[in-house]
């Protein structure tokens, strides 16, 4: 007779498949989120879904963009393409390189109004040639989020919505994140700015456990902020 826990796991897998998640085996991309990955239902960042991100304060949008850029970089790999749709983008293409994205493989679409951004994102999410679609918008209502979710279910493209408002309305997105900048981490006793650190809050995730983490971006990947930075001597040894 099968174990009770097995039956529960099987049922959970079935429910998540009905909700539009593909089993983890078909999409095994490591977003290198480290400790955060345990919050997701299958143990890895759900691809082929739409995620929404919001800055915690009005001037945290650069941090939000950086966190998304780090995730997109791992999805794009060495030859993928991404679309960046916005009505007022401030992204500096050469700056994306620091977060692992080849800026020449990103196509920027600047549109006048919100409605166009949403319809362009929906159209783009249907194109399975893309690795990721990022859209900056003011707000996202349930109906349009549902449309975006339906678009990705076929194509398995991952969508990132960077929204600017702080309303906690219900959406059909798989997860909702809130990002805040934190004081950077000093390298040893050196003066100056160190590795950027952010407070990443996972407010909602379908089938997973929400939580909050302190994440830093170091040597081209996400790290838990409590992980110590390699000391100067250690870094020197690596280089020389």
């Amino acid at each position, binding site marked *: 007779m099968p174990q009770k826990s097995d039956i529960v796991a099987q049922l959970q897998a079935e429910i998540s498949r009905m909700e539009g998640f593909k089993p983890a085996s078909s999409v095994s991309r490591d977003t290198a989120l480290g400790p955060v990955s345990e919050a997701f239902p299958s143990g890895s960042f759900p691809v082929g879904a739409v995620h929404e991100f919001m800055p915690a304060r009005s001037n945290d949008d650069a941090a939000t963009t950086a966190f998304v850029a780090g995730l997109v970089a791992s999805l794009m790999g060495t030859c993928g393409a991404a679309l960046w749709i916005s009505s007022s983008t401030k992204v500096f293409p050469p700056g994306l390189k620091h977060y692992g994205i080849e800026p020449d493989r990103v196509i920027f679409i600047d549109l006048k109004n919100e409605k166009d951004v949403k319809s362009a994102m929906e159209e783009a999410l249907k194109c399975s*040639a893309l690795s990721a679609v990022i859209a900056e918008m003011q707000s996202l209502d349930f109906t349009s989020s549902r449309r975006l979710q339906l678009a990705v279910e076929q194509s398995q493209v991952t969508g990132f919505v960077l929204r600017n408002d702080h309303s906690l309305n219900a959406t059909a997105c798989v997860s909702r994140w809130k990002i805040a900048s934190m004081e950077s981490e000093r390298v040893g006793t050196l003066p100056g700015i160190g590795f950027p650190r952010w407070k990443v809050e996972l407010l909602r995730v379908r089938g997973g456990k929400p939580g909050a983490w302190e994440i830093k971006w170091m040597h081209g990947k996400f790290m838990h902020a409590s992980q110590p930075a390699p000391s100067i001597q250690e870094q020197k040894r690596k280089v020389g």
Partner: protein
Amino acid sequence: MDKRYVSIWFKHLRTDWFALAQPELKDVPFVLRTPSHGRMVISALNEVASGKGLGIGTALADARAVVPDLEVADDKPELAGKLLHRLAEWCIRFTPSVAIDLPDGILMDVSGCTHLWGGEQAYLSDIISQLSARGYNVSVAMADTIGVVWGMARFGKGSLIVPTSEDIQALVKLPPEALRLEEEVVERLHKLGLHTIGQFIKMSSSSLRRRFGQHFVMRLQQALGHEMEMLQTVQPAEPYQERLPCLEPIVTATGIEIALQQLLEALCSRMQREQKGLRKGIVKAYRVDSKVEQVEIRTTRPSNHVGHLFKLFQAKISGIAPGLGIELFTLDAPRVEEHIPAQSKVWEGSGTFEDERLSELIDRLASKFSGKNIHRYLPDEHYWPERSFRPASSLNEKPGTIWCTDKQRPLHILATPEPIEVTAPIPDYPPMLFRYKGKLHEIVKADGPERIEQEWWIQQGQHRDYYQVEDETGHRYWLFRLGHYDDANFQWFVHGFFA
């Protein structure tokens, strides 16, 4: 039917072409030069220069000594071929079969064409007058064989129309050069005292072959019409165009869609055969009331995919007002590029940048929201932040240089730097406080300065000293000071935001 041929000899093809652009070269000695064995020699010359005793192959230094006011231009190696090809295409108005005869002639098969001009004399006069009007000095002959007509155009005297079956009479008066022979054979013939073809035309071919080789005999037989000679005719480029006349005038959108589908299928099947793809397409609808409606599409990569092109046009069908009805549709592809079909994927997965589906998506978005809103950026070799990247011209363009990573750049940038109020202690120290959008920020950590100078060959102005700073709330900014600290009018700006 007997064959008739015309040979056009451009006496000064390349120099005439230069004179078209600069008419003052017509009346002065003018030559083209080309390097040969470490010196410059004359490769082409005009009438005036040859009148002064210059010739092809003369060293340019010698020529300058003879004619001090010599005008010289550089020769282009493929110029003659290109010019002749263009002229040959133009000559298709005289006969359908026109061939290029390098280095300076055109051969035409004019059998059955001359009566349209009212006789051979009128036909030749028309060719000569039209080409002279375009600035070319030509000699044109007509005869029964290619061999005779070639020789007559270059060496014939008097009337250059050889009447039918009088080839031999014309040929015997010509010098042996008229037979298109190698130089040394011609030289040997002259040495033997054979100055006209008539002196050796009766000799037995076996003895001629023994002395002058097979090639010589072949040329002679060709001139006499005993041996066939083929012309490699110039094919005019066929435009990428399709027409669809309608039996009944079309007024409905469905009717237009069906017409469009048919036109695209015809054009795409031709483009697929020739491995071409469309970059720009125009559909014209000719209405019963003689108005023309027109819609245009563009693609980011060459495409010959019917379904995709149809979708692009479909979005614009509403722009076609049928009025009382449309009686003729045409589809033009004025811009067509090479399109090598990609190999089909073994597995379907997340695609790559080269994926066809991606360019099709971009086309759809471009037709919906205007292509001006779609950008892709490539790195450029400038430190000045606004110039460190440039828009790519197409999806296929590869970066010419790498993205710089040695200096950290912000993720967000302001289109124009915004002035801020700053308290900074001493020169070259980062600021302590700054006020941006009415809010005071206290600087806790800072890196810098990184001085970026103006590129004086592009723009004049003051340099910028950039600082990366972090305020007490953990936000990171990119600030710069324009000008020196001890200048009277330096100014601080915020330019970007780090994550």
